[in-house]
């Protein structure tokens, strides 16, 4: 369990990314007889992990390393996978993408029992990370490598505290005593945090004891104990507090996994446009889902900006063009360009009116859910000089001069309505003549829509031009992305070609339903994974993303209209138990999006509440808890979101800890179905009790 510093902090004595990667290659090539299943990559289901997996797979493919990619949906899935992995004797490299940072992977629950030649690489953007993963050394520790982004350099205090607590013996116990006493002293701290998080610096510390006072002679031992190794009570307390503060301040996100992979590719000197685009998508995903703040985004954006110009040099006359006029210069033009993006949702693929209507920022400022707000929106558009028919045209068909003026007009007129900061710097990619250039945010929307709802649920998408009675065949068609791909597959021969869905044969019972659910999720995962590099399914997925947003707006406006938001002492609760889109919102990803939309929409209308945190210091924020009923399994999916008061800022999400504590207090039957501790699935009957307990937990802060 060591952490790898990023290459710019590396030195001869501290190996960085390139060395770790070289070690993977060496291990693979050293054992040709068993290399077939020696590298396994476990991928979490979010866009960032998908991009990172794609970059890594590309690098491994170029190096002829045979590998295997397995999607993993949550902690339970990971446990099951771990049991299966224990049976593979040939495995020597395991790579975890966007999962596992918080778990103590060297404990017996996880990978501590695996063979010594297994190396586990953890590339995770979730923070906080388990300190044992980062700092524990020793022969057991060398097997787990955390790819760090430079943050660990600033964690010197936490490191000292953790090492002090782990390696030092108890002050008033015998030098030879076992560490059972240490366990009991630390138990009060361990109770606060659930076992799910695997926080156990009391782990296999028996081994580490050998680093301490094993070899000293009696006298020396006594003398040294008196002087240096005996910690005072106060020191112990401060160390405990420091570590508790690290773990207890909520969850936040560090450098995206795809950025880490991109840095690896840079060090190996193998970057090209595709990898750059994937890294950009990972970063944009983090920004649009409010995982990182605007400042962090700008910092990474400038790095990618330079990279774009390095890899895609533009001829000088084109470079001076307005950014709206990005066009492909040739049929094979696949370059990435820097562009200023507007905060409107899927702006280039929708009508202007729709894009503004569906973006949460505009919705919040103008109050879109009321008729008055919609009038204000049309008023704004009219003031800018766009006639109503023009705004109802899909963007591609709008007048050219209007498109050019759009940005300028917005900058001048929008501040009257309170809409400032409408643009942010981003990137767009050309796809030759096959499709119009696609912005990074739009691509992220499309991919995450595929991840959430590509299959397993009926989604109606709109046919372009079907509005206002344009089409004869009705306004919508069913989304068929997943199925069609399968049916189109050619019948190779009569023999093996009946492409029936194997699932249909297999399930016949409730268990089968769950398996179906899992296979739908896996299919979505691969659909999204393929769409990352193929423009045709990506473009199709845009219409899916649009209908997803429409559903979110529908639900969001009805919530606000009906005043369904209950204000508790420290947070706000919304419970969805009926509605046309209930099945849709039973997915945690979609529900999280609804929560984010609500936070953005209500940002200015609601006063922030102080959330204390474990230390009593509080920053004002907008905590939201959204719950939705899953009728099929009779459970509620609960998502906790910590919104910040300013647009572009983020807060650490403390709902993970709060949920765990509330769950323990009221003994609710629930489980965490994803890697995020702030997403919970709870039995229907226990919801009310759980929500009440959550309030009590909040009061304790």
């Amino acid at each position, binding site marked *: 369990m060591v952490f790898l510093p990023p290459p710019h902090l590396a030195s001869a004595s501290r190996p960085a990314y390139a060395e770790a990667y070289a070690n993977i290659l060496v291990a693979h090539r050293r054992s040709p*007889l068993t290399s077939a*299943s020696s590298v396994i990559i476990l991928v979490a289901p979010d866009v960032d992990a998908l991009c990172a997996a794609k970059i890594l797979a590309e690098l491994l493919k170029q190096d002829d390393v045979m590998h295997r990619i397995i999607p993993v949906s949550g902690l339970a899935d990971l446990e099951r996978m771990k049991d299966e992995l224990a049976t593979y004797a*040939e495995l020597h490299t395991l790579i975890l993408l966007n999962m596992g940072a918080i778990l103590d992977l060297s404990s017996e629950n996880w990978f501590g029992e695996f063979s010594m030649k297994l190396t586990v690489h953890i590339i995770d953007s979730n923070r906080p990370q388990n300190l044992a993963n980062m700092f524990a050394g020793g022969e057991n520790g060398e097997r787990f490598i955390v790819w760090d982004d430079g943050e660990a350099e600033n964690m010197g205090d936490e490191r000292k505290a953790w090492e002090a607590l782990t390696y030092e013996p108890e002050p008033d116990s015998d030098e030879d005593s076992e560490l059972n006493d240490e366990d009991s002293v630390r138990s009060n701290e361990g109770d606060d945090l659930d076992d799910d998080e695997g926080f156990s610096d009391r782990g296999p510390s028996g081994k580490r004891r050998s680093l301490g006072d094993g070899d000293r002679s009696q006298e020396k031992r006594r003398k040294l104990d008196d002087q240096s190794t005996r910690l005072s009570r106060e020191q112990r307390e401060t160390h405990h507090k420091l570590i508790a503060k690290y773990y207890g301040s909520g969850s936040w996100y560090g450098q995206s996994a795809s950025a880490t992979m991109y840095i690896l590719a840079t060090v190996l000197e193998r970057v090209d446009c595709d990898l750059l685009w994937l890294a950009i998508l990972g970063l944009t995903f983090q920004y649009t889902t409010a995982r990182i703040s605007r400042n962090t985004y700008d910092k990474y954006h400038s790095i990618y900006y330079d990279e774009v110009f390095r890899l895609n040099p533009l001829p000088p006359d084109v470079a001076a063009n307005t950014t709206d006029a990005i066009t492909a210069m040739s049929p094979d033009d696949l370059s990435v360009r820097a562009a200023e993006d507007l905060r409107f949702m899927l702006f280039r693929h929708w009508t202007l009116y729709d894009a503004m209507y569906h973006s949460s920022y505009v919705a919040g400022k103008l109050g879109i859910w009321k008729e008055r707000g919609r009038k204000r929106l049309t008023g704004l558009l009219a003031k800018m000089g766009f006639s109503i028919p023009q705004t109802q045209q899909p963007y591609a068909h709008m007048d050219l001069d209007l498109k050019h003026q759009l940005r300028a007009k917005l900058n001048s007129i929008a501040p009257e309505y309170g809409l400032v900061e409408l643009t942010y710097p981003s990137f767009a990619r050309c796809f030759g003549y096959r499709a119009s250039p696609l912005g990074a945010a739009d691509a992220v929307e499309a991919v995450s829509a595929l991840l959430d709802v590509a299959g397993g649920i009926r989604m109606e998408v709109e046919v372009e031009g079907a509005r206002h009675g344009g089409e004869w065949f009705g306004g919508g068609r069913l989304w068929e992305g997943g199925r069609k791909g399968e049916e189109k597959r050619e019948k190779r021969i*009569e023999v*093996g070609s009946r492409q029936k869905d*194997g699932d249909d044969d297999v399930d016949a019972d409730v268990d089968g339903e769950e398996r179906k659910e899992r296979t739908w999720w*896996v299919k979505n995962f691969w659909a999204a994974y393929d769409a990352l590099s193929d423009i045709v399914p990506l473009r199709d997925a845009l219409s899916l993303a649009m209908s997803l947003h429409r559903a979110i707006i529908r639900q969001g406006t009805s919530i606000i209209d009906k005043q369904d938001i209950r204000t508790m002492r420290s947070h706000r609760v919304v419970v969805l138990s009926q509605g046309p889109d209930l099945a849709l919102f039973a997915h945690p990803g979609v529900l999280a999006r609804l929560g984010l939309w609500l936070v953005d929409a209500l940002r200015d209308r609601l006063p922030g509440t102080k959330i204390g945190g474990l230390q009593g210091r509080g920053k004002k924020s907008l905590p939201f808890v959204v719950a939705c009923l899953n009728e099929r399994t009779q459970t509620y999916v609960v998502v906790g979101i910590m919104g910040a008061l300013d647009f572009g800022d983020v807060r650490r999400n403390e709902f993970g800890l709060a949920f765990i504590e509330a769950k323990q207090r009221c003994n609710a039957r629930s489980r965490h179905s994803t890697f995020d501790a702030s997403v919970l699935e709870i039995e229907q009957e226990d919801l009310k009790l759980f929500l009440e307990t959550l309030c009590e937990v909040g009061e304790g802060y």
Partner: protein
Amino acid sequence: MTDTRQFGDLATQLIAESRRSTLTDTLLKYNDNLVRSIIREQRDLEKMTETSQNVTPAMLIYQTTIVRNKRCLLAYHKHRMDRLRDMYWTTGGALPHILSNQDIRGKLSPHEVDFLRQYSTSVMDYRAGFSNELDITASITHPPKDLHVLVHVIRDCGIIQTELGTIDFQKGQRFMVRRADIEHLIVQGYLEEV
């Protein structure tokens, strides 16, 4: 009705079936009844030719019909054998895969199954002589571009032993593997190339 039928009528039906099979590009069920009736017709004709001593015009007609029936029977069987052989080669010589498929198995006669088995044995013997240099059951329509190929598992095929170790293919995962090792699985439809 059988009495008033023309000679060679049944044979024409058999040929029509072969033609239908070619036009629809499917293997039809082995028409055992028709074959047996034609053979019965042959026997009757043979009996009729034996009775008379001299060469009469009637005998000429019987002789022509007998020869024609024989020719039609042979054509039908050859047509089926060709189809079976093609099927064998397109699956890359995976005989158990063909024979375990109930659709196909139901359409074959026992003799055809024997034919497939013996044909497969002959090919195996032939191929074993130079399997180090050349694998004749590999596909020739798509030349391999890469040493490794990324595959997606469509159907569970369990644990496969390859030269480089064992690989456990599970549904819904992707693997990068040596092309030579799993080519036969792609052809049989368990894996899909990405």
